[in-house]
C-alpha cells in the first residue's frame, strides 16, 4: 500500500462524498423531528423522536428494575444484586453529600441518575436518538434543580439564604468584589450543569458520526482504521454516559446540600 494508491483511491471517491455530503452530516442525528403535531390550547406538546426516546429511556429503566426485582430473594440473583448495588450506590452519594436530611430527596436523585443514564446509553444504539444531547432537555433538568435549590434555600433559611453569597471570614472591604463573583458563580451553576452533559453527549456522538462517515467514504483498505476507532470509542462512550450521569447526579446533590445547609 503506498500513498499514491491511497490518493488515487480518494480521488475516485471524492465526488461521491461531495454528492452525498448533505446526507453525511455528522450533526444530522441531533435533528429533532416531530412525528405527531400536538398543540392543545396553543401549547406545543408534539411527539418527536426526542420525546419517543425519552419514553423509551423511562420504559427501559423501569423495565430493567422490575425485571431485576420480579421475585426478590434474600440471597439475590445477578440482576437483583445489580439493582441493590445501584440503590446502595446512590444511597451512598446522597448520604455522603447531603447527609440524613437528604433522605427525602433520594427518590428524585435516584430517578434523575437513571433517567440521564438511560438517555445517554440508549443514544449509543445505532439509529437511535440521544435525548441528553439536546441542550433544552439538560437545561430543563438543570434549571429545575436550580429553582428547587433556591426554593429550598429560601424555605429553610429565609433571608439568611443571601448569606450564601458572603463567604465566612471575608474582610468587609472585599465584599464588593467577592459577592458579585459568588452571585455569578451561583448563576453559572445551572448553565454549567446543563452544558456539561449536553456538550459531552454532542461531542461524543459527533465524533462517532464523523468516524463512521470516514469508514463509509474511505475505500476498504483505508476504512478499517476509523471503523476500529469507532468500536473503541463506542465502548468509551458507554463509560462517558455513566460518568456524566454520575457527575450530573453528584452536582445536584452538592447544590441541594448547599441550599439545605448553606456553607
Amino acid at each position, binding site marked *: 500500500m503506498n500513498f499514491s494508491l491511497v490518493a488515487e483511491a480518494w480521488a475516485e471517491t471524492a465526488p461521491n462524498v461531495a454528492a452525498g455530503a448533505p446526507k453525511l452530516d455528522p450533526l444530522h442525528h441531533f435533528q429533532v423531528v416531530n412525528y405527531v403535531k400536538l398543540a392543545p390550547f396553543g401549547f406545543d406538546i408534539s*411527539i418527536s423522536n426526542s420525546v419517543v426516546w425519552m419514553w423509551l*429511556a423511562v420504559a427501559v*429503566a423501569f423495565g430493567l428494575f422490575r425485571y431485576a426485582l420480579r421475585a426478590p430473594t434474600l440471597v439475590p440473583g445477578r440482576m437483583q444484586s445489580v439493582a441493590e448495588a445501584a440503590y446502595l450506590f446512590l444511597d451512598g452519594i446522597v448520604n455522603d453529600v447531603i447527609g440524613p436530611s437528604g433522605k427525602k430527596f433520594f427518590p428524585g436523585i435516584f430517578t434523575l441518575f*437513571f433517567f440521564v443514564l438511560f438517555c445517554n446509553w440508549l443514544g449509543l444504539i445505532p439509529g437511535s436518538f440521544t435525548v441528553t444531547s439536546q441542550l433544552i432537555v439538560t437545561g430543563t433538568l438543570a434549571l429545575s434543580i436550580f429553582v428547587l435549590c433556591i426554593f429550598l434555600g429560601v424555605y429553610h433559611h429565609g433571608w439568611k439564604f443571601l448569606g450564601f453569597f458572603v463567604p465566612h471570614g471575608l474582610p468587609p472591604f472585599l465584599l464588593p468584589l467577592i459577592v458579585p463573583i459568588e452571585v455569578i458563580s451561583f448563576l453559572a451553576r445551572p448553565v454549567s450543569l446543563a452544558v456539561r452533559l449536553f456538550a459531552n453527549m454532542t461531542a461524543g456522538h459527533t465524533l462517532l458520526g464523523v468516524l463512521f462517515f470516514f469508514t463509509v467514504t474511505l475505500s476498504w483498505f483505508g476504512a478499517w482504521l476509523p471503523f476500529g476507532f469507532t468500536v473503541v470509542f463506542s465502548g468509551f462512550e458507554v463509560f462517558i454516559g455513566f460518568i456524566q450521569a454520575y457527575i450530573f447526579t453528584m452536582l445536584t446533590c452538592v447544590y441541594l446540600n448547599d441550599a439545605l445547609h448553606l456553607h
Partner: protein
Amino acid sequence: MITEAYASAGAAGKEAAASGLPQFESSVFASQIFWTFVSFFILLMLLRKYVLPAIETILDARASRIADELQKAEAGRKEAERLQANFQGQLVAARQTAAKMMEEARLDAARMKEQAHEELQQELTKKKNAALVEIEQAKHKAMEEVRNVVVELSMHVAEKLIVKSMNTEDANRMVQEAMTNLGESQARLH
C-alpha cells in the same frame, strides 16, 4: 478535500447551509420541556411506587436476618461456653472420685495383705505346736517301748541267772550292769 467537498455540497444543499447545531432550533423546545418534565415524573412515580420499596424491603429483610443470625450465633456460643464449664466441673469431680477410689482400694489391699500374713502366721504357729506335741508323744511312746523291752530283757536275764543259780555277788553286778545299760539307752533316746 473533505472540506472542499462539504463546502461545495453546502452551497448546493439547504440542510447543510442551516447554521449551527440542530440543538439550537428553538421551534422544538416547548414540547421537549413539557415531555422532559412528564417523563421524569412518570419515572419518579414508577420507581417510587414499584422499585424503591421492593429494594428497601429486601435490604431490610436481609439486614434483620443477618442481625438475627448474629444474635443466634452469640447465644449458641454462650450456651457452648456454659456447657463446657459444666463439663469441666464434672470432669474435675470425676477425677477426684477416681483418686478417692484408688486410695481406698490401695488401703483395702494393704489391709487384706496384712490380714493374710497374720492368718498365715497363726496357722504356722498352730502347726508347729501340733508338731511339737506329736514329737513329745512319740518320744514318750518310744520311751515306754524301750522300758518294756528292758523289763522283758531283765526278766529274761533274771530267768537265766536263776537257772544258772548264780551267787548274790554276781546277781548284783548283773543288775548294776543292766541298770547302766538302761541309763545309757535312755540317754541315747534323748
